[in-house]
């Protein structure tokens, strides 16, 4: 094997190569189609531009994807309730803060309440999955169905608005800061999570539980607690995402807040090169996956695709990306390549 081939192999073998490759392709495509895509301007003291928009809009998806990654890694299943939990947490927060001219309770309590609700929902899911040994998707189907129902119960089926201005800050801009707040929150969540996973052995524990829960138990890991904690964390992330979602529109619509975002979060995990079967995982991959999804959405909007036709293109890109990462397809292509080369050799020999 020549040296360049070796280098190529080393690069393509890097676990984040494919996710990054897909993101770059999506961005390059934009460079050709929408030349203004990479322009960043400052208007009214805040940053504007497609790229900023992509990062801003992908914030809640990144947060959810981080939580989802841990759930997938530890339990080999997905948490489909995060969208409903976000709506639930947002509804509780706004209900507690009230819809008057001033807050009923201090703002920080509202925020804590939302995060707490998220964590409690996560704990319920975790209890069902880790302790009762129920398949993750079925267990989270309960809150998926009930979450929006309970949220509607709280809001009385109405859309509640918050009139206090400071509520918008979380989803828009802090005074005097040109970068949207959601980006900060997403960065904090990603950094804190990575630090916890890197500095403690938790990351390793989650992987070993995900690869083989029984074996992990035999070496003395408490698989139940680790799975439980991953669900609590995922719920917590859903609570934070719910806060951002409600703050963006300073209102809660229990039926539509975070609708289908769980699917995008799962997709982000898969696009990041993580196996949905559990085990090895990469937070960075999921973050890249989330940004890819949002970049795709934003670029399609930039190309004047209407919102309801958008899923078609999304589906096509998803299936191409996932098929590219499929080991079966790679095996097949390798097989073809070997076949071709042996045929060439035979031809040479015949000559």
């Amino acid at each position: 094997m020549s040296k360049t081939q070796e280098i190529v192999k080393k690069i393509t073998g890097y676990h984040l190569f494919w996710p990054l490759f897909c993101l770059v392709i999506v961005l390059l495509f934009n460079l050709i189609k929408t030349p203004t895509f990479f322009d960043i301007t400052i208007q009214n003291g805040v940053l504007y531009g497609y790229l900023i928009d992509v990062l801003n809009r992908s914030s809640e998806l990144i947060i959810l994807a981080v939580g989802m990654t841990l759930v997938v890694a530890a339990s080999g299943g997905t948490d489909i309730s995060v969208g409903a939990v976000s709506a639930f947490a947002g509804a509780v927060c706004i209900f507690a803060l009230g819809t008057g001219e001033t807050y009923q309770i201090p703002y920080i309590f509202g925020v804590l309440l939302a995060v707490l609700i998220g964590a409690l929902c996560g704990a319920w899911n975790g209890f069902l999955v880790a302790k009762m040994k129920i398949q993750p998707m079925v267990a989270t189907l309960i809150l998926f169905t009930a979450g929006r129902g309970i949220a509607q119960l709280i809001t009385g089926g109405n859309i509640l608005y918050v009139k206090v201005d400071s509520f918008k800050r979380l989803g828009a801009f802090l005074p005097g800061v040109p970068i949207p707040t959601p980006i900060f929150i997403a960065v904090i969540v990603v950094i804190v999570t990575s630090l916890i996973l890197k500095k403690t052995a938790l990351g390793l524990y989650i992987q070993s539980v995900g690869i083989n829960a029984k074996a992990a138990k035999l070496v003395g890991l408490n698989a139940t607690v680790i799975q439980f904690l991953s669900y609590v964390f995922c719920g917590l992330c859903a609570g934070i995402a719910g806060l951002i979602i409600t703050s963006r529109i300073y209102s809660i619509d229990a039926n539509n807040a975070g609708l289908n975002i769980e699917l995008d979060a799962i997709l982000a995990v898969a696009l990041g090169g993580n196996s949905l079967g559990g085990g090895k995982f990469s937070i960075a991959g999921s973050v890249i996956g989330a940004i890819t999804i949002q970049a795709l959405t934003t670029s399609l909007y930039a190309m004047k695709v209407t919102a309801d036709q958008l899923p078609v293109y999304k589906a096509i890109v998803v299936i191409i990306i996932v098929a590219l990462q499929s080991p079966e397809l790679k095996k097949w292509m390798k097989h073809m390549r070997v076949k071709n080369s042996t045929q060439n050799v035979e031809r040479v020999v015949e000559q």
Partner: protein
Amino acid sequence: MIKKVRERLDGNSFLLMITILLFIALYIAGVLIFSDKNFGKPQVFFNLFINNASLIVAAVGMTMVLITGGIDISIGSVIGMSCMMLAWMMEKQGMNPVVSIVIVLIVGGVFGLVQGFFVAYLKIQPFIVTLAGMFFARGMTAVISSDMISITNETFLKIANSKIYLPFLAIVNKKGNLVYPYIYPSVVIAVVILIVAFIVLRYTAFGRSIYAVGGNEQSALLMGLNVRRTKLKVYVLNGFLAGLAGFVFCLNSCGGFVEQARGFEMEAIASSVIGGTLLTGGVGSVVGSLFGVLIKGTIESLITFQGTLSSWWTKIVIAALLCFFIILQSIFAKLKDKKK
């Protein structure tokens, strides 16, 4: 004797029993509570089938996919797309209803074929494949038309609205006339599909191989079953049934719009789970799924009859029931493990 009964009532059929008993209990409760509002009329019972005909068809397909250990979350979108296609072909293109229906069924089957190929042959997780399918079908619905299309085709409406009176369970109404309960053709389709699926799953080699593949793929392979082809066939069948469910849905709604049947897949999954299907594969029956659908329908009509409760209570009650069944299943699974 008791031993025999106990043997027959192993965990799974016991769960099915509970599902059926719960349905009966719910229904009797409805009859007793709302006796003044005529909940006990036979027509109310048949309305369960009329309102949920397409869900029954969809749940049958879903049950088969779940038994193989897979999942298909695209069916809600496929149903929406089928309705839109039917409406568009008949209204905008002036096509014959029969031809349109055949095309919809074929498109459903092809949709299943593509998804099945990705799942069975490229070994991509079914959740992701059908997620892409879900996006694609929903988007295509909007591409066909983003406005609502109502169906005015006479032949189609005739099929949709032809009441079939049943020759039994007649009651005497206020005027003293005999009134027979009626159903629509959609119910006939649903019941036929249910019976066929029951027979196929129970008595054919294909049906048994579905269970074998879901129970343990490795063993099925070693037994000489063509695991890939079985899976592919199931997805094709499910796609076809989703198309058919779309047609049945359209018989009820007589129109197509983008947001139609959103979340239908989760209702189908919930019905299957309440009916005793395990998402890990290998266990499940279409009869259970039927009762899962009927329980959901009964809760809905109880809430409608009550009158003052808001629609979101349906979601909460169904989730509570789902919770009850899931925990019951897990307890049984644990008991079984202990016995071993």
